[in-house]
């Protein structure tokens, strides 16, 4: 009986201090791969296959964003900073946005993206396993997910991404 209560106590205690943010891919420590789909590009409206563009570069950063999302504005500077790395390309998934607004956003705040795929109704983002905006995946050539960041990226994440990309 006593052992049982002590056990309960410890469990609750641990639950209290536990991190509340949850991402299934990395809790399970399984290697997961980004799904593949094709979406139209923002400026050209050409259909682009995600796997093809990812295959072009050693590493890709897939960033889900929208012009109406406040944290995306703050994140934009960090993304621009990362876009200067030669072995890394940044692919934007423009989430549930209007073309006019997204282009205005990129003109105002700068465009870190090599490609921008337009996900008008948000279903392909669900397909990716994304929660919303902003969300960022670092993948290698074979679409293997190396890092997944839910919410805006911060300086620490940038450091971590740089470490992985630079070997």
């Amino acid at each position, binding site marked *: 009986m006593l052992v049982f209560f002590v056990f309960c106590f410890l469990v609750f205690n641990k639950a209290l201090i536990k991190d509340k943010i*949850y991402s*299934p891919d990395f*809790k*399970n420590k399984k290697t997961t791969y980004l799904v593949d789909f094709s979406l139209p590009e923002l400026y050209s409206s050409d259909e682009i296959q995600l796997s093809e563009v990812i295959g072009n570069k050693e590493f890709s950063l897939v960033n889900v964003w929208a012009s*109406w*999302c*406040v*944290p995306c504005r703050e994140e934009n500077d960090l993304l621009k900073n990362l876009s200067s790395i030669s072995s890394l390309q940044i692919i934007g998934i423009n*989430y*549930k946005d209007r073309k006019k607004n997204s282009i205005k956003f990129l003109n105002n705040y700068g465009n870190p993206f090599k490609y921008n795929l337009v996900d*008008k*109704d*948000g*279903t392909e*983002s*669900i*397909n*990716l*396993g994304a*929660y*919303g*905006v902003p969300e960022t995946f670092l993948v290698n050539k074979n679409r293997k997910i190396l890092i997944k960041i839910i919410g805006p990226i911060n300086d620490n994440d940038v450091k971590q991404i740089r470490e992985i990309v630079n070997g």
Partner: protein
Amino acid sequence: MTLNKSGRLLMVKKKFMVFLFLFVNFFGNCYSETEPYSKLENDIAKNLRCLICQGQSIYDSNSEFALSMRIYIKDQIDNGHSEDQIYNMLVKKYGQWIVYDPGYSKKTFLLWFIPILFFLLGGAIIYLRIYKSKKI
């Protein structure tokens, strides 16, 4: 006792939440189709957790995530997937957390078993109590 650092941080966080809330609720919903949802779609939506909300189902929520999820569910039904197949697909993407039905597995064995055990034990105790008292 001035506003300390954590207090300020909390305020920033609060402001951020306010914005988020505003955008989610006010400018939300890109979905403009005028078709009503079918019963199957509603049933599935009721059994899925809105992952970015606090304790709401997809059905209850009006967040972007929930609205996209509804379209996603609709697409999958149109593609000929069954209810269970859709749950399985989503569990693969988002983990068991997304479905309200914990399901039967090794992990949830105790979840189902403990209450049943309580029921059986209770029944046994009552039976013994009545049976035993008869003998004396």
